């Protein structure tokens, strides 16, 4: 489809004209760069690939770790240090309690509240496998146990797909027999990608633009979501103790979190980029918000993270000095808030496991919207499960002060009007872009405007971004820059040590103009960087 393309490889000695011209002008003016880091900024994507490459090794280490009893668990660490102070004492009943209870043998049978599935014929599998609509879904996701028991399917009902799940399990164990791990099968334009993470097997079947490594990354997100609900150690133990457990209930009603996550993965750039989008906000407002959180929370022991988010965007994040938040964990928090309508009307106290922070224990989250008249959600994450009322009180004080300083209005205004279109840049042939600042793990992008005004067009351009992303991250041949001229688009992907940029331009743009526009874009972002990014890293 590409008529001509310019590709700059890692190894090429003389950079092409494009890169030369732009980087000359750029010098130290890279937008969004900051020495102050609050989010883990190792590229999630590379990290995920690295995890896969070392898969066999880590499982072995994982087992060894468990016996010792999570010696490096950050949750334990915070508890131990602060235990001595006897403030908000949570005693010793923490992760372990929850885990042993989950193992309790007399687990009640959870009723299935689907009144529409009373037939239980044996050949029900066939039903789906003959449904054109089901077969043509762009991306299927299946989760099963290592013994082949169905746990989740994105489309349809898992108990109607027993044979298919059995087949997937057979494939995995067939390859495992020769001491290997199955990764993927490609057949026509369908990719079958397997992620084996004992005790679970996750499978993606896709004919979307997502590449194999990108599908791995998506499956890793799905796995993280499960860990976030159950914790890794509870998951392992459940499988060890109860071989005959009905695994369909494993997720206990939290399938909606997976459904929501899978929808987001199909169109939201944050996962692809491994970055977080901030709500664009005047620095003075953001500063007041952050100071307010610090003011009322810094004295609260055991509080690890305090953050305000809205519509999948970060407004403010304050952290305990020695911990960073991983973007992948933050995405799960976004997803939780996003998928839980009922948070809007109450104050909530929820156990939340952040797999990158500590896969084996829960943090306890005080989660509530700021006010009836403000759509932003405050999350206070603590290792102390007895702290609800302390945090509730802090929340009230935070909201009162934010109201006094007109920050709630500020947030509301930003929610209504801070999104920008690519017009703001003043580069006429530039249609859309994604810009990620690598040091801060944050990204910014404009709203879609024509020609990307339909869902279909947006999906298409997202697919093209996936393609660009795949090319610049290709393990075999990573590229610094890619310039593709297609009949409907001109695409540019550019990766430096500080940023990643993906841009869609008019198909007939000249290379010269493209350079001018990209320069203009970088200058524009630089100008607005304090609004678009959080460049400081506040702590309690």
């Amino acid at each position, binding site marked *: 489809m590409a008529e001509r393309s310019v590709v700059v490889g890692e190894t090429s000695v003389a950079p092409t004209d494009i890169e030369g011209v732009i980087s000359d002008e750029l010098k130290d003016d890279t937008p969004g760069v900051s020495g102050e880091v609050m989010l883990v900024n190792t590229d999630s994507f590379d990290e995920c690939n690295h995890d896969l490459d070392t898969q066999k090794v880590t499982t072995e280490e994982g087992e060894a770790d468990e016996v010792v009893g999570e010696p490096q668990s950050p949750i334990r660490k915070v508890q131990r240090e602060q235990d001595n102070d006897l403030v908000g004492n949570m005693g010793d*009943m923490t992760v372990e*309690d*929850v885990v*042993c*209870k*989950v193992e*309790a043998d007399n*687990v*009640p*049978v*959870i*009723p299935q*509240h689907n009144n529409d599935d009373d037939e239980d014929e044996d050949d029900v599998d066939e039903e789906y496998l003959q449904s054109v609509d089901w077969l043509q879904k762009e991306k299927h996701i299946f989760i099963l146990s290592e013994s082949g028991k169905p746990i989740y399917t994105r489309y349809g009902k898992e108990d109607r797909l027993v044979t298919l799940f059995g087949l997937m399990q057979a494939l995995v164990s067939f390859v495992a027999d020769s001491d290997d791990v199955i990764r993927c099968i490609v057949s026509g334009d369908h990719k079958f990608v397997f992620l084996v993470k004992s005790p679970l097997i996750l499978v993606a079947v896709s004919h979307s633009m997502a590449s194999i490594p990108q599908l791995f990354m998506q499956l890793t997100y799905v796995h993280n979501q499960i860990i976030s*609900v*159950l914790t890794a150690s*509870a998951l392992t133990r459940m499988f060890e103790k109860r071989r005959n457990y009905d695994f369909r209930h494993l997720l*206990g*009603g*939290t399938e*909606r979190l997976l459904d929501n996550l899978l929808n987001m993965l199909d169109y939201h750039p944050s996962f692809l980029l491994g970055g977080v989008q901030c709500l664009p906000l005047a620095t003075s407002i953001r500063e007041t918000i952050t100071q307010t959180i610090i*003011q009322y929370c810094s004295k609260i022991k055991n509080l690890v993270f305090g953050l305000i988010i809205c519509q999948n965007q970060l407004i403010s994040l304050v952290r305990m000095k020695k911990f960073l938040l991983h973007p992948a964990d933050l995405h799960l928090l976004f997803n*939780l808030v996003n998928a*839980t*309508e*009922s948070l809007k*009307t*109450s*104050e*909530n*106290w*929820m*156990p939340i496991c952040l797999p990158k922070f500590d896969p084996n224990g829960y943090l*306890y*989250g005080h989660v*509530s919207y700021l*006010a*009836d008249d403000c759509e932003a959600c405050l999350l206070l994450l603590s290792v102390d*499960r*007895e702290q*609800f*009322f302390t945090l*509730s*009180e802090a*929340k*009230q004080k935070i*909201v*009162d*002060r934010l109201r*006094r300083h007109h920050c709630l209005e500020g947030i509301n205004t930003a929610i209504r009007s801070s999104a920008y279109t690519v017009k703001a840049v003043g580069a006429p042939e530039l249609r859309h872009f994604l810009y990620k600042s690598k040091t801060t793990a944050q990204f910014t992008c404009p709203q879609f405007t024509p020609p990307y005004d339909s869902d279909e067009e947006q999906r298409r351009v997202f697919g093209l971004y996936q393609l660009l992303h795949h090319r610049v991250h290709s393990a075999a041949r990573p590229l610094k820059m890619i310039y593709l001229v297609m009949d409907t688009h001109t695409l540019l992907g550019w990766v430096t040590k500080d940023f990643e940029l993906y841009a869609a331009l008019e198909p007939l743009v000249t290379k010269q103009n493209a350079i001018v526009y990209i320069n203009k874009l970088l200058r524009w972002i630089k100008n607005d960087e304090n609004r678009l990014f959080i460049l400081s890293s506040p702590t309690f």
Partner: protein
Amino acid sequence: MDAHIQHKGIMTGKVDMKVVMLGQMACGKTSLVERFMHNHFSSNYQTTIGAAFGARIMDVAGKKVCIGLWDTAGSERYEAMGRIYYRDAMAAVVCYDITQPDTLARAKFWVTELNKNEENCKLYLCGTKLDLVEKDKEARRVDFQDVTDYGKEVGAKVIETSSKTGENVEELFAQIVQDFAESNAAIMASLKDSFPLTEDDKPRRKCC
């Protein structure tokens, strides 16, 4: 109705009475709370993660009583957290679904647990989804008389409600505060009289 609801930002000190909702997944706890607090019902099921806290002020015996209500998750995954929600509760609404007999077994588990650990907690066994039975008598799978017999044994009052129609929901909570008022004269004496809330009730702000 909204005038007497304060579902956000209630602090420990402002809640006069802690009430906890317990019972198996999907038996109707959140719906009951939603009807009581917001006079609203949705047939769309979203399982509760952890627990949700809300408060509402009710008038009883010429006083304003602020009820702090914990709506807990039914999933056994969070069972170990149960204790932090029911500790020091003055009342527990233990729910079961009258169309699902196994939910009663779960309710009995909670009754035993509470009787063992929380002497001062009054128990209310609440059979939910009464509307389903009124539509179709066959749907009833838990006999009211059986539960009242059991209730007498363990010292629990029994009521059947429908969050869909609202039947008996207000009555349930009225009963709960009534019982609270009768057995906590001292606390009641210290409470504000029943006249409309004024701005003075808000906590004083300090200068910063």
